[in-house]
């Protein structure tokens, strides 16, 4: 899995560069997010703008990453479009994650709530 990281204040913005988050990459995806948390990133914006396909395993990887962050961490999703946005809505995962149309909106939302 390829990511592009960018730090905005305390918030880590991680853009997923691959088009698919499916069963085959879900474990690596999860490990990658766990590594962000281990490095001390407690506010993460996951930019899904370039993702065109996500399956249940992909959603599962996101959910377990969110859970592993515990109460002190925060994970928001930005830029989900088309079928990907539809998947989140259909499965009600849009209520599990904080979802924002743009990175800026996600960053501002997390900046307000970020742990100092």
């Amino acid at each position, binding site marked *: 899995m390829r990511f592009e990281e960018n730090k905005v204040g305390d918030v880590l913005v991680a853009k997923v560069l691959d088009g698919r988050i499916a*069963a085959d990459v879900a474990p690596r995806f999860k490990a990658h997010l766990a590594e962000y948390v281990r490095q001390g990133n407690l506010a993460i914006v996951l930019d899904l703008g370039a993702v065109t*396909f*996500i*399956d*249940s*395993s992909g*959603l*599962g990887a996101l*959910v377990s990453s969110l859970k592993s962050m515990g109460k002190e961490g925060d994970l928001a999703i930005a830029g989900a479009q*088309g*079928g990907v946005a*539809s*998947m989140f*809505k*259909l*499965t*009600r*995962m849009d*209520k*599990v994650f904080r979802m924002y149309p743009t990175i800026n909106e996600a960053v501002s939302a997390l900046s307000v709530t970020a742990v100092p």
Partner: protein
Amino acid sequence: MKAMILAAGKGTRVRPITNVVPKPMIPLLGKPVMESILEHLHDAGFDQIVVNTSHLAPVIQDYFRDGTHFGVQIAYSFEGLLDRGQLQGEALGSAGGMKRIQDFSGFFDDTFAVLCGDALVDVDFQKAVSFHRERGAVATIILRDVPREEVFRYGVVATDPTGRITQFQEKPKVEQAVSTQINTGIYIFEPSVFDHIPSGRSFDIGSELFPALVKCGAPMYGVELPFQWVDIGSVPDYWEASRLALRGGIRGFRIPGREVMPGVHIGINVGWNPNRCTVRGPVLIGGSTFIGDGAAIEGPAVIGAGCVIEPGAVVKECILADYTRVSSVARLDRLVIFGNQCIQPNGEHFGIEETGVSWVIDDARAKQEFAPVQQELLQLAREIAD
């Protein structure tokens, strides 16, 4: 009178719906588009109809059979071959398909009509045929005027004051279009038109036959008649047509079922308690469908036959194929569920199996077996729904 319905297209612009059914069989409120066309042809006095088929031909032929149930006589001209037990379509194009029928039996022996199997029309054929005969035309096209910005989607036609066609353009750029009159795919022909169609090869009416007729100076006319034309040429077209039909906006198109409350039509044997779920019309609910307590259906929506809408599910402005199961945790918003696909009104889609969302949406008859990750998501979604 005799007619031909063009039904051999692959329907690439209506994928993924046309991966499962050919365009003429796309159900509008549960009824194949071609069935409405046949009804109109029957009412207009057409009694012998040949349908050329190719892509998914058996779906058409098994439904309409010899036409007896529809009050007409139907025969098929299959374009393709059976190869190792599999039917392979080899469509000949619209004019090529006509020629194949004529070469086979000389079926067309008088003025006849040809129309596409994928658009609902209530055109006055008597008027069209009178216009055609009065002018001694070999071909007459039913035209319609469209806003200039839409001409790029169609074949554009220029006519002189008598209606004689002087020029053709196939899908021109907006700035280059010679008129805003477009070809609706409804034609009246004389058998002499076959002199201009080659045998045994693919030939198209719009892009090959008509330019050839114009070139040789054959009497070809266009007539603009007021009629309703509901094209199902793309997924957005299908989306709009279904909503229009639900609102009663298609002339002569009857919403099936019984209206049990304003705008809510239901089939027979529906398992529901109207006082315990929310249904806001216009909605059509097919027969033998179950709607659980606490479910919410917001129109315009079509719920097919044999569906299961589990308690608490939310279905907002959707078109669900027969036998769709919507899980109690699901929230369906502006989707077409057809052929195991979730299709958005713009045509974007993803596979239910491919994405592993069968824990949310599935075939109502399928055995429910979920992988650990699906169970985990289901549990989480249930907690949220509660």
